[in-house]
C-alpha cells in the first residue's frame, strides 16, 4: 500500500502545497488503490480516472505557475452517487436511472470543482439513499473493509467504505436519517451531517426534502471540517439554504478543547437494544471527556424515542412525492408491460416503476402514499409533524442546559450481510440515535471511539449541537479524537 493514500486530507494538502507530491501522483495512487481493492468492496459504482487526472493535472499546472490555490486543491474525493455530476453517470443506486448522465452539476460538485478537488468517481449507496446497510443498492452491496462479510452501513456505505479503505481521503455523503453518521460509525471514520440548510441540496437527488443534508466524510475531524467549508454556504438555487455565514468549523477542529464544555448524555439512548460492546466504548469516551475537563450532564429527551415513528411517516411521504418524477417519460429507464404491444403512457409508467425500483423503495413509496392519502393525513403525516416539533422542543430544552449532546451513533456494530434483510422494522430501529437530528434540523457528527470488545468492529460516538452551531461539533469531535484515537485499518479484511 502506497504511503500517500494513507495520508489524511490535511496532510496530503500540506504535501501538495510544499511540492513533495503532485496531485496527479496522489490521484493515480488512489485510482490504483481502487483498482486493487474495490473488487472486494464495491464501494464505487463509477470511476472517472480520466476526469480526476485531468483535474489533478490542471491543479498541478496552476500550482507550478505560482497560483494561490484553495487548501484542498488537488486532494482527490469520492462523491456519493446521489449527487449529480455533469457528464458523469448518476444512478442513485437504482436501475431506474441506469445510464442517466445529468446535464448539470449539483452545487456541491460545482464547489468541489472550483476548489480543485479531483473527483475519483461515484460511490455506492442504498437505492435512493433508503437503507442503513447498503444492501438495497441495485448494483450489489458495498462491503465493510473491516470485514467484507459485513455491511458498511448506509446509505452512504460506499463513501464510508472508500474512505475507511484508503480508496479516497475524502468523500461526500448524504444524511436523511443517519446516512452519513451511521456508516461512519460502522467503518470507523468521521462523518458530519451539517445543520439543515447549511449545505445546498441543489442537484442532490431528493429522498426526503425536509430531512436531507449533504456532508463530509473523512478520516479526521479536521479533514471533515476542511471539506465542510468547501461545500457549505448559501445557495440561491436552494430555497431552504441558510443565508448566513458558515460557522468556523476548521478553526473549531484545530481548537479541539472540551475544558468547561457542558456535554449532555442522552438518557434515552442506552439500555435495551444497545450492544454491550458499544455501550462500554461509549462509557469510556464519556469518562475521558470528563477527565479532559468537560462537564457531563445527564439529560432527558423523552420525545427522541418517538423519532423513528415520526421519521417513518415524514420520510416515506416525501419519498412518495419526490420519486414520482421517475416515470419513464423524460429520462431514465422505460419498460413496457409484458404482452402488451401497444401500451399506454400510464401502463409504461407503472411497469417501469415496478421494474426500476427495488423492494425497499417500493415499500416506502407505498407507505408514504398511505400516510398522505385522504382520511389518514391528519392521523399520520400531521401527527408526525407535531412530533417533529416536540423533538425540536426537547433539543431546545437540552441545549439550554448543555452545549452539545453525546450518544452512541448506532446501537450496534456492523452486522453481517443479510442478517436483517427479512425484517425491515429491525433495520429501521438501527437509526434510533441519528434520526432526531434530521427531524429537528440540527447538526451531528460521528467520531470513531475504538473497536467494540465483543465484535472487534468500529464503534462511533455522536455529538449533536444546536442549528447553525456546527463548529461545536468539530471542537468536541476534535477533542474526542485526541482522547480516543481512531482505530486504524491495516488492510481490508476479506
Amino acid at each position, binding site marked *: 500500500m502506497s504511503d500517500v493514500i494513507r495520508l489524511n486530507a490535511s496532510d496530503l494538502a500540506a504535501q501538495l502545497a510544499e511540492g513533495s507530491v503532485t496531485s496527479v501522483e496522489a490521484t493515480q495512487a488512489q485510482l490504483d488503490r481502487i483498482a486493487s481493492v474495490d473488487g472486494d468492496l464495491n464501494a464505487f459504482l463509477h470511476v472517472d480516472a480520466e476526469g480526476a487526472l485531468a483535474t489533478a493535472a490542471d491543479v498541478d499546472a496552476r500550482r507550478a505557475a505560482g497560483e494561490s490555490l484553495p487548501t484542498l486543491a488537488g486532494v482527490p474525493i469520492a462523491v456519493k452517487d446521489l449527487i449529480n455530476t455533469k457528464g458523469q453517470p448518476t444512478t442513485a443506486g437504482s436501475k431506474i436511472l441506469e445510464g442517466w448522465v445529468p446535464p448539470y452539476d449539483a452545487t456541491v460538485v460545482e464547489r468541489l470543482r472550483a476548489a480543485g478537488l479531483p473527483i475519483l468517481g461515484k460511490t455506492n449507496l442504498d437505492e435512493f439513499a433508503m437503507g442503513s446497510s447498503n444492501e438495497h443498492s441495485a448494483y450489489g452491496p458495498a462491503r465493510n473493509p473491516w470485514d467484507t462479510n459485513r455491511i458498511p452501513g448506509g446509505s452512504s456505505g460506499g463513501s464510508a467504505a472508500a474512505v475507511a479503505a484508503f480508496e479516497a481521503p475524502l468523500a461526500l455523503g448524504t444524511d436523511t436519517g443517519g446516512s452519513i453518521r451511521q456508516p461512519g460509525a460502522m467503518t470507523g471514520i468521521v462523518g458530519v451531517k451539517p445543520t439543515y440548510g447549511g449545505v445546498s441540496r441543489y442537484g442532490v437527488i431528493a429522498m426526503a426534502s425536509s430531512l436531507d443534508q449533504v456532508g463530509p466524510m473523512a478520516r479526521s475531524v479536521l479533514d471533515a471540517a476542511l471539506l465542510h467549508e468547501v461545500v457549505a454556504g448559501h445557495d440561491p438555487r436552494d*430555497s*431552504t439554504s441558510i443565508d448566513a455565514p458558515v460557522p468556523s468549523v476548521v478553526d473549531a477542529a484545530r481548537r479541539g478543547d472540551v475544558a468547561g464544555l457542558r456535554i449532555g448524555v442522552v438518557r434515552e439512548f442506552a439500555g435495551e437494544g444497545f450492544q454491550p460492546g458499544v455501550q462500554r466504548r461509549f462509557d469510556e469516551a464519556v469518562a475521558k471527556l470528563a477527565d479532559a475537563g468537560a462537564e457531563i450532564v445527564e439529560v432527558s429527551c423523552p420525545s427522541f424515542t418517538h423519532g423513528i415513528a415520526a421519521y417513518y411517516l415524514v420520510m416515506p411521504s416525501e419519498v412518495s412525492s419526490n420519486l414520482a*418524477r421517475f*416515470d419513464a417519460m*423524460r*429520462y431514465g429507464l422505460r419498460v413496457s408491460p409484458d404482452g402488451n404491444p401497444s401500451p399506454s403512457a400510464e401502463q409504461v409508467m407503472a411497469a417501469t416503476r415496478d421494474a426500476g425500483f427495488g423492494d425497499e423503495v417500493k415499500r416506502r413509496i407505498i407507505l408514504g402514499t398511505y400516510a398522505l*392519502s385522504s382520511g389518514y393525513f391528519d392521523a399520520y403525516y400531521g401527527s408526525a409533524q407535531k412530533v417533529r416539533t416536540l423533538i425540536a422542543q426537547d433539543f431546545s430544552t437540552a441545549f439550554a442546559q448543555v452545549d452539545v449532546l453525546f450518544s452512541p451513533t448506532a446501537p450496534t456494530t456492523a452486522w453481517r450481510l443479510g442478517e436483517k434483510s427479512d425484517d425491515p422494522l429491525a433495520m429501521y430501529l438501527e437509526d434510533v440515535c441519528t434520526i432526531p437530528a434530521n427531524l429537528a434540523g440540527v447538526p451531528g457528527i460521528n467520531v470513531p471511539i475504538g473497536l467494540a470488545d465483543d465484535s472487534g468492529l468500529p464503534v462511533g460516538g455522536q455529538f449533536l449541537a444546536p442549528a447553525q452551531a456546527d463548529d461545536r461539533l468539530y471542537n468536541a469531535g476534535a477533542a474526542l479524537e485526541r482522547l480516543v484515537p481512531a482505530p486504524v485499518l491495516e488492510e481490508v479484511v476479506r
Partner: protein
Amino acid sequence: MTTAAKTPLVPFDEALTRYEPVMGLEVHVELNTATKMFCGCATEFGAEPNTQVCPVCLGLPGALPVVNAKAVESAIRIGLALNCEIAEWCRFARKNYFYPDQPKNFQTSQYDEPIAFDGYTDVEVDGEVYRIEIERAHMEEDTGKSLHVGGATGRIHGADHSLLDYNRAGIPLIEIVTRTIEVPGDKAPLVARAYVNQLRDLMLALGVSDARMDQGSLRADVNLSLKPTGSSTLGTRSETKNVNSFRSVERAVRFEVGRHAGIIDAGQKVVQETRHFHESDGTTSSGREKSDAEDYRYFPEPDLAPVAPSRAWVDELRGTLPEPPSERRKRLQAEWDFSDLDMRDTIGAGALELIVATVEAGAAPQAARKWWLGELARRSNDTGVDLAALPITPAQVAGIQGLIDAGRINDKLARDVFDGVLAGEGTPEEVVAARGLEVVSDDGALGEAVDRAIEANPDVADKIRDGKLQAAGALIGAVMKDMRGQADAGRVRELILEKLT
C-alpha cells in the same frame, strides 16, 4: 370514460321552470412574468419546443424550485383587486398526480393556505349589478403541452403516441375560485360571461397577464349543478373545461343546464366528471370521471419556504391598484357621455376596455363605440371569435376612424379597410394603399364624373337649376356609383351646385 345514456337536452328556458342552476367558476390566469414560477426560464409564447426549459421545469432529479418574486407580487395585486384578504403566512403544497405533461408528477400549488381569500367583485349585466364572491386566489404552475400523433382525428383518442413540449411547464398561474354564484337562473349564463370578461379587464388593468382566452392565458372552468326549484338539495356537478372564449362561457352554462335537466328529468344521475366544451357546436362531452379514487395527497412543499408578505408590502401594492371596475365604469360613462343604454351594450359586448384603448389611440368615444359594437361585433358574432380576439387592435380601429376624420375614406370604404386589416393585409394605411380605397377629391376626376352624371340625368339637372337643391342627392348617388364609392361626397355636392346654380 363514462358514457351516460343519451337523454334529451331540455331547452334552457324550460329547464329554469323546474331547476335553479348552482354555478361556480375557476379561472386560471397565466401571468406575464419574464420567467417561470420556480425557475429562470423565459416564458415567450410560441417559442420552438423545449427551448425554454431547465432542470427545474423539466423535473430533473436533484432540481429545486425558487419562487419568482414578481409572481408573488402579481398574486397579491390580483387578490387585492378582487377585494381579498392577503394571507399573513402561507405555504405552497404539492398536488400529487401522474400525468406526462406534469414533469414532477406533482403540481406545486397551494392547498388550504391560499395567498388571497374571501374577496368579491361586482359585475354588471343589463344594468344590474351582481356580486361574485371570491373564495380564493392561489399560486401554482402550468403544465407542458402534448401533441397527439397518429389516429384519425389527431386528438388524444386513437393516438399512437404523444409528443411533449415543456416550454409551458412551470409558467406561473393564478387560480381564482368563486364561491357558489347565486343569481336568477336566466341571468346565470350572462353573469358567468360578464365575470370572466371582467377578470380579463382587471388583469389587463393590473398589467399582470395578457389574459387572452384564445391563447390560453386566461382559462375558465365552469362548475355547474342543478337543484330543483325551491329545494336546498344540491345536485351533482360537472366541471366544464376547454372554454376558450367569453361567448363560450355563456354557451357552456346554457348547454350544461339543459343537459343536467335532461338527465334529472329522465330519473338518471348526473355523473361527477370533467367535461370538454366544443366551440364548433356549443356542446360538451365527457372527459375524466372524478371518482373517490382521485386523491391528490396534498402536503406542504418542503422545498419552498413559506410566503409571509409583510403588511407594509401589501399596503404598498394596494397603492398600485387600478381603479375598481364599478368606479371605472361610472367615470368612463361620464367622460364619454354615453347613455345608460350605450354603456350597457358596451359592457355586454365586452367592449369597454377596447373602447378605452381606441379612445386613447385618438378616436372619439362615440366613433369607437360605433365600430366595436357595430361592424366588429357583427364580425365577432359571424365568426364566433371574441371581440378582443379579433385580429385588429384598438390602435388600428382608431387609425381607420382617423382616415375618415381626415376625409380620406368614408364609412363605406372603412368597411373595406376593416376587411383588409382583419384579413391580415397590414395597417389601415397599407390596406387603403393596396386596395386603392382612398376617396377621390381631385376636382379634375370628380368634375368629369359630375359632367357625366348631369349628361345622363338631364331632368334631375333641370330641377336643380330650377332651385330644387334637394334633388342633388340623386346626382351625388350617380357620381358615387360611377366612382365605385370612392368619391368625396361633400366635394361632389359642391361641384354639382357650382355647375348648376
